């Protein structure tokens, strides 16, 4: 070999090495920039909102005076809406997941249901809002109530719950099912005594992620026409008289945290924007905590359960 091609080859190798190192830096930079931008934004939010995060902020109603305004009706509303969402989405989603994973025959109907669930997960949330406006608010006459909002968000997170349930069920090995059958269990006994309890952790993870998505959703709640100025609480669910339980609150008008934040953000006065930042901190802490819990739960399950 003549010396010239070797030198060229060395140069080529050096060039590729350089590009390789350059990309390592670019990749790390992209990752860091992405994370740092978000960290910067979150810090800005926390610093702006911190002075307003007093105990009174959580126990006051919204007000026309920014300094006196709080998020009492918003977080109570969020909590009650989540209650309706959880009570609807969990049973429906888990049942659908169990059917698709444990019962469904391999036929065109199952295929349609599966494709449909995938497709529903991709439908923008505002479309669910329009569905709720046409169906729940007007067709069923639920009005602009906690019930309408809770059901809307339940439909929205249903695909998340279904997919998570299926994944959790799939992780249970077939030998467990065969063992149950071998002892004479029916399919439902096998499912309800063994497979579902063993996958409860995975299902919980999906449910928490779904609920955290629902708690931050704004667009569909605006679409059903949630009022933004609510200076009262819904009727309490527990009453002093027989039968001690009241479902009047389901029909009450309401506001939720993201709506309250949206309302404050779109005000021109700076004082209200401080409130928006404070509400944003509360919202962010809630959703991130729920997600962190879900991720932690999943890692724990992965580590602990070795079939």
């Amino acid at each position, binding site marked *: 070999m003549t010396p010239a091609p070797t030198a060229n080859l060395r140069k080529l190798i050096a060039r*590729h*090495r350089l590009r*390789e190192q350059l*990309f*390592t830096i670019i*990749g790390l930079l992209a990752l860091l920039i*992405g994370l740092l931008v*978000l960290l910067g*934004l979150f810090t*800005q939010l926390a610093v702006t909102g911190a002075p307003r995060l007093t105990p009174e902020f959580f126990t006051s109603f919204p007000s026309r005076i920014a300094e006196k305004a709080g998020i009492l009706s918003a977080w109570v509303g969020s909590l009650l809406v989540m209650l309706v969402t959880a009570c609807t989405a969990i049973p*429906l989603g888990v*049942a*659908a997941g169990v*059917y*698709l994973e444990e*019962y*469904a025959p391999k036929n065109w109907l199952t295929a349609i*249901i599966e494709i*449909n669930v*995938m*497709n*529903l997960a*991709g*439908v*923008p*949330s*505002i*479309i669910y809002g*329009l*569905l709720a406006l046409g*169906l729940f608010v007007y*067709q069923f006459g639920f009005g602009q109530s906690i019930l309408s909002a809770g059901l809307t968000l339940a*439909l929205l997170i*249903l*695909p998340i719950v*279904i997919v998570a349930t299926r994944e959790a069920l799939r992780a249970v090995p077939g030998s467990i099912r065969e063992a149950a059958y071998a002892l004479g269990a*029916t*399919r439902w006994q096998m499912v309800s005594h063994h497979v579902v309890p063993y996958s409860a952790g995975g299902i919980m993870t999906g449910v928490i*992620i779904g609920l*955290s*998505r629902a*708690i*931050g*959703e*704004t*667009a569909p709640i*605006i*679409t*059903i*026409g949630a009022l933004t100025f609510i200076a009262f609480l819904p009727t309490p669910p527990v009453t002093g008289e027989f039968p001690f339980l009241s479902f009047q609150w389901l029909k009450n008008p309401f506001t939720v945290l993201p709506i309250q934040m*949206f309302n404050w*953000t779109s005000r021109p006065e700076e004082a209200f924007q401080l409130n*928006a*930042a404070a509400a*944003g901190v509360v919202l*962010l802490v809630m959703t*991130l905590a729920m*997600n*962190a819990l879900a*991720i932690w739960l999943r890692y724990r399950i992965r580590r602990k359960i070795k079939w």
Partner: protein
Amino acid sequence: MLNPGRSRSRRLRERLIETLLFLAAASSVAITFAIVFILVKEALPLFREVPLASFLTDRQWTPLFDDAHFGIMTLIAGTATTTAVALAVAIPMGTVIAIYLSEFASFRLRETIKPILELLGAVPTVVFGYFALLVVTPLLQKLYPDLPGFNMLSAGLVMGVMIIPYVSSVSEDAMRAVPMHLREGSYAMGATRLQTAVRVVMPAAFSGLAAAYILGISRAVGETMIVAIAAGMQPNFTVNPLEPAATISAFIVQVCLGDLPHDSLGYKTIFAAGLTLMLFTLVFNILGYWLRKRFREIY
């Protein structure tokens, strides 16, 4: 030993439970039908008043003015512009992050970063809207003082940052699904990691990457709160990101914020706008589903 009565009731119970579970699964199909039914039913009266041709070709969208125009293209232009800005951020950043995590990063770094990316995907969009209007826009105004307070640029940029986790996590999954022996073959030929990533892994994961980008587009098209807060809600037929404009979703929000009696014109227009949005996302979803299915079948 076998009790026929008990066995029959047990069989009956099994059938009943199976039927109930089937109904739960079928309810998801019912939701899809309900969405299509409601959108079409509530939007149809509008098309009795406004011919479809003018809905598609008119260059103004002023449904609530006395001089009413119904040109959906105005809203589509806004949606397309914010989506384009968002993708200009999300696709390069998301792809570079995915290549880095899949081909370069150590196992520990990857396992640390993935949950963090996942967490970022969970941040409520209204919080991002706050950032776009009250943090990013003032920053951009320092660079470019003529920028209006509401503009599609800052909404698009923030939306892009929001979409990065989706794009990078799906792309990374697609690239990690490429079998190791392809990489080993490439390394054996003396290729560097970058060459392997760009010339072997990315082409092999092509349909998965395409699915990730389409997922990103679909997110950006349907995203509501960021654009409603930061891009202004005034319909404006433009593709200049420095101007304020309304997207399809922002228009729906704007109408819903006001008083909205059933059967009013505003009520019909938001369903027509929603139907348009639904058609767009449906096309992207089907395309994405098809691509993902293809890339799964290759290996």
